[in-house]
């Protein structure tokens, strides 16, 4: 099997893992039909948060990459098994997920636009030089069977971790994928991670409009297509869509294109549903996921969460949303204190 074929299967497998794990904390309230796109989004949030906690603990315990891989695989397997148990009845009845729900024309067009973007990510060489450092570190970790211990290039041993080294563990999952599949980290980042981020971004955009337009397929699809086209068209190296197409594998791209829109989606779901504890838990986990993506997330995620959740709670009269917000700020605040005082 060629590397590209294996990478394509790996990307599909990653989305499947997100879908299965998302069944633990779906956006849908009890009795509400579940959405494929929202389930995958929830799975991404849960997986990123869990991998962050696992990676930080393993790094602090000076475990090898192999030991971290075992911990991560066991943890993810337990989550997937838990999801299957929780959703056993609906899996048995064949109603585990209903559909993304789009009018035919706009669904085809949106899929084409997202696929073009994903292929463009793989084929167009980026001019950014920074990812070389990330990939070099991943390669060094795999070769030395360690977690961020070897300095790439010189292969000297780090005597201590900076706060950023310790907390920004977004690429631990990609290193795990590279180790399990045998793919080079460059391929995992360019051909697996970047298109997965593009597809997730498209899914979240569609579901935001589906919820806002009260399930009207035509308007939701049209708005999603226009938003994706606008994002692809208006870009520089500093806009979110520019990040997606220039360095879609980085934590900043996931932050700007997946996590921040996911916060908007969480706010809309809380606004439109009866009090739903699961969405509050997702908001909390998204705070932990933010810590893993980038130091910038410690400024941006709280700003996004507060700006969305305060109007939702006040004008939507969803006061428990404020409680969820306060609790969710704990992880980014703790990380911010570590950056300042460690």
């Amino acid at each position: 099997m060629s590397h590209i074929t294996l990478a394509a299967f790996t990307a599909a497998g990653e989305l499947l893992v997100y879908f299965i794990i998302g069944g633990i904390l779906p956006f849908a309230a009890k009795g509400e039909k579940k959405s494929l796109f929202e389930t995958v989004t929830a799975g991404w949030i849960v997986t990123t948060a869990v991998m962050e906690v696992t990676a930080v603990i393993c790094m602090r315990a000076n475990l090898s990459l192999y030991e971290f891989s075992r911990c991560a695989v066991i943890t993810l397997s337990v989550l997937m098994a838990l999801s299957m148990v929780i959703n056993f009845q609906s899996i048995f009845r064949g109603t585990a997920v209903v559909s993304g729900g789009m009018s035919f024309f706009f669904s085809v067009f949106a899929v084409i636009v997202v696929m073009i973007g994903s292929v463009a990510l793989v084929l167009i060489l980026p001019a950014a030089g920074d990812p070389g450092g990330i990939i070099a570190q991943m390669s060094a970790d795999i070769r030395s069977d360690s977690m961020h211990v070897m300095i790439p290039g010189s292969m000297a041993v780090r005597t201590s971790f900076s706060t950023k080294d310790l907390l920004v563990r977004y690429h631990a999952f990609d290193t795990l994928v590279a180790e399990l599949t045998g793919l080079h980290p460059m391929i995992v980042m360019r051909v697996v991670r970047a298109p997965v981020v593009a597809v997730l971004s498209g899914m979240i955009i569609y579901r935001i409009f589906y919820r806002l337009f009260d399930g009207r397929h035509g308007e939701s699809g049209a708005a999603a297509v226009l938003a994706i086209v606008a994002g692809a068209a208006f870009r520089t190296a500093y806009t979110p869509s520019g990040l997606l197409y220039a360095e879609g594998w980085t934590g900043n791209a996931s932050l700007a294109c997946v996590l921040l829109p996911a916060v908007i989606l969480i706010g809309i779901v809380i606004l439109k549903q009866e009090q739903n504890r699961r969405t509050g838990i997702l908001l909390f986990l998204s705070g932990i996921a933010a810590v893993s993506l980038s130091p910038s997330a410690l400024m941006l995620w709280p700003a996004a969460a507060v700006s969305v959740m305060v109007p939702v709670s006040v004008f939507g009269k969803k006061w428990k949303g404020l409680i969820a917000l306060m609790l969710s700020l704990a992880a980014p605040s703790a990380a911010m204190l570590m950056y300042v005082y460690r």
Partner: protein
Amino acid sequence: MTAYETTESGLSFLIKTILGYQAPGYFLFFAAGLLVAAAIFGGKQFRIVFLWPFVILCATVFNPYLFPLLFERWPELIEEYYRFLWLIPAFLLIGGGFALIAFKFRSKAAKFLLILTFAAGILLLAVPSLRSYREIPLPANSLKADPELITLCDYIAGESETDTPVIAFEREDFAKEAVAYNPSFRISSALYLPGGAGNLKNDGVNFCVIAKSRPAMEEKLQSLGYRAIAHTPENMIFAQFFTGN
């Protein structure tokens, strides 16, 4: 990055940041116009989700009287301030605003044509940024590697029959930098560790790189089954010819 002068007003810095880092500059103002459309046509939900967060952001992170105070305390924020613009869901506003306008019409044909027109308009307006993306040149030698090393690595990569050749460099610095330049290489330390030449066979080394004018080392490599296949201004490349004992 945009510099911030302490005598500059916060509003001037904010506009300069928007125009500098969200080009074409009219993109965000465009989205702002559609924010108004969303607030008028979209109803309570759109106002809560898009308008009020925008108001809160304008009062806090985009407040031209507040962020200069943050810059005094944390000057490093100046370089990163443009990232706060990611909080504005501009392309969501464009998509949602246009969809709201188009679906105010009853006729399906009118809705379809309007959506196509809006999409075409977006692409036409964005032609400058699409064109500039094609013009971005790839950086040459972005790793700042020694040109001699680049020549050696490129030659070996071209000659190698395997995807992951094992290479022994006499220079330790070349050994470490070669991996960064070409991650498919596998490196053996046999030539730069004392007495390690005997490990060339054990390490399965395919290529050896030594300095020129080293007859003793050349003889040693030939006795181990390696033959000189190329040379650069300062180095010689030996390839493994015998896979037996």
